[in-house]
């Protein structure tokens, strides 16, 4: 997939995860893998520039908190602006999905 498109899609997925609770980067990667049955197994380092860009856009905020193990982790929290961004991206995605389905559905009809 085109890298830029992938980044846009990934940022939507990350925001979706953060909509539920505040998470740190590694936790998000694991959660994405789990929920997508390993389909979204990104190069893990690429997650952080996306998170930092979202922070630049004020869609997320970060804070540090010590985990149970004692290790300090940087948690991300979705802002109100992030929620709006997620809604916009989800709408775009739905429109895209419907368009793809229409085209693919039409193609199957012809083939059948």
């Amino acid at each position, binding site marked *: 997939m085109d890298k830029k498109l992938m980044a846009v899609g990934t940022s939507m997925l990350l925001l979706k995860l953060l909509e539920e609770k505040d998470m*740190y980067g590694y936790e998000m*990667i694991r959660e994405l893998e789990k929920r997508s049955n390993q389909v979204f197994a990104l190069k*893990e*380092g690429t997650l952080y*520039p996306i998170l930092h860009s979202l922070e630049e856009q004020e869609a997320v905020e970060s804070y540090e908190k010590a985990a149970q193990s004692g290790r*300090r982790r940087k948690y991300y929290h979705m802002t109100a602006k992030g929620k709006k961004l997620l809604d916009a991206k989800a709408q775009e995605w739905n429109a895209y999905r419907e368009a793809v389905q229409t085209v693919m559905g039409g193609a199957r009809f012809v083939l059948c």
Partner: protein
Amino acid sequence: MSSVKEMDSGKPAAVDTAVSESGKNESARKIEEFLEEVNEQIRYKPMRAAIDEELKGHIEDKTELYKEYGLEEEEAVARAVRDMGDAVEIGIQMNDAHHTRIYWPLMGMALALMVLGVAGNIRYFWNGTLDIWFLNDVIAENLYFPAGVVALLVVLRWGYPFVIRYVNKICVCYLVFCGFVFLIRFSSGFLYDILKGTVFAGRLLSLSVYFGVLILAAPVLAVFLYRQRHKGVRGILYAGLFTGTLLLTQVFRMYGDYLSMAVFALLATFFAVLLYMAFRGYMDMPVKKTVGVSAAVFLALLLLGGIFRPDNSAIELFLTPERHAGDLWEDGYNGVLIKELLGRAKPAGRADISQEDLYAYGTGKWYFSEGGPGRWEGIQTLEEMEAYLNQFYQEDTVTLENILPQHYQNNYRIAYWILKYGWLPAILLMGAMAVFGALLLGVSFHIRNRLGCLVAFAGSICLIIQYLFYFLGNFGYQFGWFGTLPFVSEGKTGILVNAVLLGLVLSAYRYDLVMEERMHV
């Protein structure tokens, strides 16, 4: 639990938990190499440590997972690092997300306002010939504009990191300096007389320097308040105590009531920053409680600063200038005269005032003559004053510039524009300054970093308050000592102080994307 080999090939892995020391070193080296490659792409070096820590934490978590699957330390680290992806690409993308920046609209408008100020000064001193006197005046009066630009650029580059790094030391310096000035003036005989005679101390103790000291305390106070946010009521009281100490000279009216505007700007910043922190949820106590305590301390400080003192001459001058209009040189008369003249201004073009009326305004006859609204209290008689003024102009030669208050090019720049060019052009220029104020607030609230936002907010409040009070003064409502119209009117301390304030606003914006919260606390 599945093993890593199951993940890769579906076969169980052989587990060996013994880790050699050399293996550990090799693992650490691999992580360091990866982080170094990322770092090489990040131009703003202070940002590197925070990025390192986050990426390193991720690698360590993933390493733990691989070790749980049965891999040895070295192999686990190698895989964890490999899973991260291309270090250079990550570094480049991180650098894109973290770069310093300049808010050009604000910078451009400040420079445009300065050009307007310099042009006004040149016009004021223009005597029709390009002689040595003209050049001397123009250079002397405009020297602080380029100095202001230099101060702006220096503070833009280093100001914000400096303030947040050394805020405790800056606060101590503030207390020492204010204590020193207070003691010297309090001794009001021996020490004051000795020091007043010296150039350095004389300047140090001057009204304009103390004005600058109070105004520049506002961004420092914002940092101080932010750092007290977890201390509840105690934190607000500490900040109140710090601010109150800066106002000691005001308690004893050592500068009269001239500094009332600076005191008001500082205290308005105190209250506004606390309100902002309360409503944004930065404080560790309920919003209502924060607002209540902040308002109480704010009012107490206003009382301490003498703003509500019944005989505060700044308030009197502001509300009832005619009570302070006993002769042509009193500030109250300036307010009365300006109000009268503005009533004759036209929507566009020069105010239509006859030579006879101009002369009456200049000599004060319109106000102080028998039947006029004012009462002459000057040392000289009104006739003696007229004879004195006749050295400079007669009824047939008097001009608008002759009759305006002294230093009108500094203190009444707006009123002068209205009288000379009409209301519409002047309103346009005031509109441009309102846009400048809106940009200041806009950029402050655009800063994502909490402390950066507060520092910029504090600087913006002080600049906007100066504009507001200057505008009011130009409509005949002068409050305290005449400040400058930021970046436009001539001044020395005023230009430098405002350049520093704007520099801090722009500096907080500049470092917004490259400074993490942890760097602030």
